[in-house]
């Protein structure tokens, strides 16, 4: 823990400069491309912070899916031909810069004033691990110790998806999100997709499975599965399912539903809501994770697909 190594300083400077470029550059499309690169660099920094789980999530969701979302939106908006709104006056930009500096200074001052023996919950987390039957402490926090946050977060995802769907016109309600993908069936994209998707699914399932003991878990696995499904859709191999299909709705609520079911079972029979009886804690957690992976994969894909636009 000698002074920060040259690599760290270099990476930090690089991340900040890419972020600054993404914020300041005039053209939106290049800003989004810069943002995707920025996302990957941040994932690298998470590895340096010994947070591999977070690095995986950041790479998959933070830069991957968010990048796809912003890129497709930028492409659509760029085509719109709407006149670029005038950039704000110099005075506003100066004040904004001052606010940015103030926020940075405040946060740096706060970080520097942290107490030296840093308070941590690492010890109690590891001691309680055997009770959950899990190896990876981060997954244990997500699924056991702070299970309510994850549970509520599932409901947040459902609401976000319904919010996106609510922007559809009444005429196309229940239809398929996103424009019809016109990719030629035997082009290189379709060929590449048919080869990659099975492998990708396998990797996703593996990342999900290994999450119990090593970095990985439901979110990361689900994101890889979602990426594969998106690839298939873009390649025209598969089409986005219509919004009104009951089985799609069922999958979307399965994750949170199973979580609640197990939680309420704990309330009724076990000793507390969301408490897993020691005997089959492992089995229950696996069941929850499976349902969660399926739900998150479908939800993330449909979030990117957007509001229903066609009934065909």
């Amino acid at each position, binding site marked *: 823990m000698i002074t920060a190594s040259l690599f760290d300083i270099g990476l930090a400077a690089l991340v900040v400069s890419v972020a600054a470029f993404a914020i300041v550059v005039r053209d939106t499309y290049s*800003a989004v491309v810069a943002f995707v690169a920025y996302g990957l660099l941040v994932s690298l920094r998470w590895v340096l912070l010994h947070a591999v789980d977070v690095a995986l999530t950041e790479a998959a969701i933070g830069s991957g899916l968010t990048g796809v979302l912003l890129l497709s939106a930028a492409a659509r908006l760029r085509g719109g031909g709407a006149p670029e709104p005038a*950039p704000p006056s110099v005075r506003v930009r100066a004040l904004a810069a001052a606010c940015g500096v103030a926020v940075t*200074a405040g946060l740096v001052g706060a970080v520097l004033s942290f107490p030296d023996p840093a308070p941590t919950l690492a010890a109690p987390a590891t001691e309680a691990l055997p009770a959950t039957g899990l190896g990876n402490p981060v997954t244990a926090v997500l699924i056991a110790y702070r299970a309510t946050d994850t549970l509520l977060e599932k409901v947040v995802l459902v609401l976000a998806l319904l919010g996106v769907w609510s922007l559809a016109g009444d005429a196309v309600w229940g239809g398929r999100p996103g424009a019809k993908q016109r990719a030629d069936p035997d082009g290189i994209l379709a060929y590449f997709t048919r080869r990659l998707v099975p492998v990708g699914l396998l990797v996703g399932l593996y990342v999900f499975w290994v999450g119990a003991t090593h970095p990985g878990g439901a979110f990361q696995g689900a994101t890889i599965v979602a990426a594969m499904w998106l690839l298939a859709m873009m390649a025209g191999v598969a089409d986005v399912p219509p919004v009104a299909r009951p089985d799609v709705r069922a999958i979307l609520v399965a994750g949170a539903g199973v979580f609640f079911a197990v939680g309420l079972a704990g309330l009724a029979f076990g000793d507390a809501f969301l408490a897993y009886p020691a005997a089959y804690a492992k089995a229950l957690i696996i069941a929850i994770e499976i349902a969660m992976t399926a739900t998150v994969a479908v939800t993330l894909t449909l979030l990117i697909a957007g509001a229903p636009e066609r009934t065909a």
Partner: protein
Amino acid sequence: MGDVTLFGVAGAVLAGLGVYGLIASPQPLRKILALNVLGTGVFLLFGVVARRGAAAGLGADPVPQALVITGIVVAFAATALAVALTLALTRAAGSASLESDAPAVGEDPGPPR
């Protein structure tokens, strides 16, 4: 602990950049991008806190990491909703600017339901 504070400073600078972008960039899409930069900055703060809390054989305190994972997923959901809204607004109003809506006193901007 030199490099951990470096990460802290980097996170703070990213947050500052995010705030600047949020205030100064006119289009909503750029504001969404700035919000994501601000988000990553804040999550890096959690990362620094986690790293400082390394103990009991773990490289970092698992609790803040779990909070960050939940935060990233929520931030993605927010971005998705914001982008969908921006696209819907562009479709409905032609231009996705946030400003031209202040209903000046007197004119009746259409019948809300």
